[in-house]
């Protein structure tokens, strides 16, 4: 039996091809703007962040203190049972030292790397981590299980945003 072709097409363009003027490009740039309503649960979360406190919701059916807080428990699909204030301290579950910006451009000489981490906040159920940044720490000194505490913006600079917490620092 005759062997069939498996691969066809996919003509590679090189940088020279692109700059030669023989391959035409059509360019456009989109400027998209959005304003998101923060919702029933997260609006309260942000309100409390503005007050310098972290609030979670509880599911009494699943025995969970949930962070970020939510209107309903995604496991049992019942409405959350109520609100609970939790601490602004936690433990580093995992972390990274990131040398690129959100758009993949590289950070510049002298610019500090981003230090994203998954932090399990004290008072929330075990494993309920949130993504936040670490600060006031040398990247090479970050450890798994490290205890950290929120560093808040001054009260008059808080806007009701997750960035009202500047970062978490080791304690």
């Amino acid at each position, binding site marked *: 039996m005759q*062997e*069939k*072709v*498996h*691969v*066809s*097409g*996919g*003509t*590679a*363009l090189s940088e020279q*091809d*692109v700059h030669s003027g023989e*391959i035409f490009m059509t*360019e*456009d*740039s*989109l400027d998209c703007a*959005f304003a*998101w309503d*923060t*919702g029933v649960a*997260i609006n309260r*979360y*942000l309100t409390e962040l503005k007050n310098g406190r972290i609030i979670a919701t509880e599911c009494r059916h699943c025995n969970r203190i949930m962070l*970020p807080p939510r209107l309903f428990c*995604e496991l049992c699909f019942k409405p959350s049972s109520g609100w609970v204030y939790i601490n602004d301290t936690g433990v580093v*579950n*995992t*972390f*990274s*030292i*990131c*040398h*690129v*910006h*959100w*758009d*993949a*451009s590289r950070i510049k000489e002298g610019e500090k790397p*981003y230090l*994203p*981490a*998954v932090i399990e906040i004290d008072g929330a159920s075990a*494993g*309920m*981590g*949130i*993504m*936040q*940044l670490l600060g006031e720490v040398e*990247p090479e000194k970050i450890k*798994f299980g490290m205890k950290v505490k929120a560093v808040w913006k001054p009260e008059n600079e808080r806007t009701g*945003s*997750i*960035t009202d917490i500047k970062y978490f620092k080791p304690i």
Partner: protein
Amino acid sequence: MRKVAIVGAGMTKFVRRALETPKELAYEATKTALDSCDLRLEDIDCVAHGSAPDAFDGIHQKGEYLADGCGGWNKPTMRVYVGGGTGVHAIIHGWHHIASGMFDTCLVVCEEKMSSAMPHAQGFFLTIFDAITERSLHPNLLWIFALEMNRYMQRYGYTKEDMALVAVNNKRNGLKNPASQFKDEVTVEDVLNSEIMAYPVSRLDVSPVSDGAAAIVLAAEPVARRLTDKPIWIEGVGWTLDTAYWGTRDLYYPRYLDKAARMAYEMAGIREPAKQINIAEPYDPFGYKALHHMEGLQLSPRGKTVELLRDGHFALDGNLPMCPSGGLLGVGNPIAAAGTMKVCELFWQLRGEAGERQVPGNPRLGVAQAWGDLMQVSSVVVVGN
């Protein structure tokens, strides 16, 4: 449910930047798949096509745009979109069309053109993060991988060198694949010495940005037997979504895959996947991900995967070859097309048509898997000859 077979497959080369438009890429893969089983478009009853974020192309609702290139004109056509999981998910979608008895033949086509996004496709991943509770931290997609890789390594005491072995293995296999966008072998030192993008992720731990398309033809049993004496049967399918609260999952184990894999094995009557599966195509956008997914696929005991890799267990001539195609690391990663490419590879391997990269010993069963959305979806297909 009716038995469904793969009867044809085709793909384009994967390249960093293709001259072809998305629709032209889809056409090349689709036409090659149809020609491979001597079918014409009029023999096809329906189309299941897939492509990942519209933002890459800057074409909103690109499924409709793409349909002509997938042979979708005047046919029941549905697009699947679950991010990186799309390429395997679309095949499950096509399987439903036929298994249900609704149609006898179905084209499954997945395409991605990432090069149009300026300056870099990666920027668009910012918008997969939660708009209110995460995005204002300006996350890069690499964060999530780096956080997961670091946690996985820490949990089992793996090193960056261990993780680099995957890129070496997969890129070596990829050199034998005529569709690969790479020409050079890499060593562990090359990976370790490549730029650290988001520790512990270095540049060569990451699959590239690519353009490409891949397609398969599915047929119901009587049609398949008429068309070929080597049909490849879809023996099991499985898929699940974990919660979008990704920080709530402990990232060292891919729970989203565990359930999907068990679902597919149960359907296929597989009780001991690590012994019964002959070829694995786990989703490998990053080196560690292949190992992470081998564990989730129940093909390797948790925490023992590096040992098996080092012992040659996953090599092309090992007991359970991993990514004989070269995978995303060794062929390229046009998101949706990459998952479908993995099933094309199993089709060729199980028919003994994989040329230089043919797995020896007449393999009988293969599994392919893809993963995506906010690190939460997994799609699994088990195929056999």
